[in-house]
């Protein structure tokens, strides 16, 4: 398994040719290597593993996923209400 934690990039610099960043993990801040996200910018969320940013968090996709889960809930509620109506 690979422990991967999302955090927000707060600062970017170059350390002798290696792109580095400060990343804020909910109040915990650590320097990470940005070599694999050459286009990443301050403010973006990224998933960190072993001190390296591996991927950007796609905020739209995250929102859509959560919205889809909520829709399941609405469906659930409607079904529940329908059942209640036809129930005894």
């Amino acid at each position, binding site marked *: *398994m*690979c*422990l991967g*934690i999302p955090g927000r990039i707060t600062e970017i610099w170059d350390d002798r040719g290696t792109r580095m960043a400060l990343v*804020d*993990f*909910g*109040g*915990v*801040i*650590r*320097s990470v290597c940005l070599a694999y996200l050459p286009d990443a910018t301050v403010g973006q969320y990224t998933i*960190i*593993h*072993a001190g390296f940013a591996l991927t950007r968090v796609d905020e739209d996709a995250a929102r859509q996923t959560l919205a889809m889960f909520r829709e399941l809930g609405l469906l659930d509620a409607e079904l529940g209400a329908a059942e209640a109506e036809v129930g005894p």
Partner: protein
Amino acid sequence: MADTADMAGWACPAPLRDYQRIVLGHGGGGVLTGELIEHLFLPAFAAGSSTTRRDPTSAMADTALADTALADAAVLAVGGIRLAFTTDSYVVRPLFFPGGSIGELAVHGTVNDLACRGAVPLALSAGFILEEGLELDVLGRVAQAMGRAAAAAGVRLATGDTKVVERGLADGLYVNTSGIGLVPPGVDVRPDRAAPGDRIIVSGPIGEHGIAVLSVREGLEFGGDVHSDTAALHGLVAAMLAATVPGVHALRDPTRGGLATALCEVAAAAGAGIEFTESAVPVPPVVEAACGFLGLDPLHVACEGRLVAFVAAADADAVLAAMRAHPAGRDAVVIGSVTAEHPGVVVARTAFGGNRIVDRPLGEQLPRIC
């Protein structure tokens, strides 16, 4: 493609043998520490004693010796009074960390061990092991921190000792403090008094000390404030005992090994089960974040200024109110209760409605990648 993984021919790894030397985990306050006490110290110290110990922790308080080794402090009857007696050594690195230093820890830790037997701390000893080359300024700052902490706690640093070892044989400085305290009449606080029905109260947010220290070691910074929670707790305990003396059954300060270890040790000592609601445990967001980042369980992270109390159900409201009225217990909260079911086992109810068993960590906590 990959079709040669041999089902019948899988090979098995060799067992890990018992360590023949001390490893760091023996000092982690978890399972390895417990086994060292059970298998090495207790038999050696109790040679000739007829006490039988089926389970090292359930035998707690059977004898003064077991009591000494396994409760926070021993209680000794001396000339008509009861003295609580304890000792603790402090080897924290770094010596100074956000919110405190080894100096405050050395006073608070020992005071808290006395407090967890319901004792009023009276006096401490201070033994120093110093490494050749240590800057006097560092020692001075530690000593002043101890002096301030002791004065604030109202205990005397009554006696001491200093030794110096050659450079390289110690990591700057180590401190040992021993303490004595007076157990007021009628007060009987010990882990094996926890009983089914007791409410379990945690005095405040957990894990801040461990994360503050770890932050320095792991090169973490904190956007918000993370400070060690190091604090003396005897004032809080006095306030709780003012609410009820008989209702306060057991107290534990969850230091090494964290809240999980404290709960497991009390469950074992009391021969009872523990159930708690995971979401009720106050974990500060930054502790949660740091634990997520390092792959640690907040329940295993040390506190130095918190206690967990096992209180008779009828007295729980009064004790909780008394705790919340005290600065050291402002955020006290009930997290669960003691049960007659599953003796010796601690069970957490998850936010999703499942349950899981909570165990002590094996040894020290290490950051992991996977």
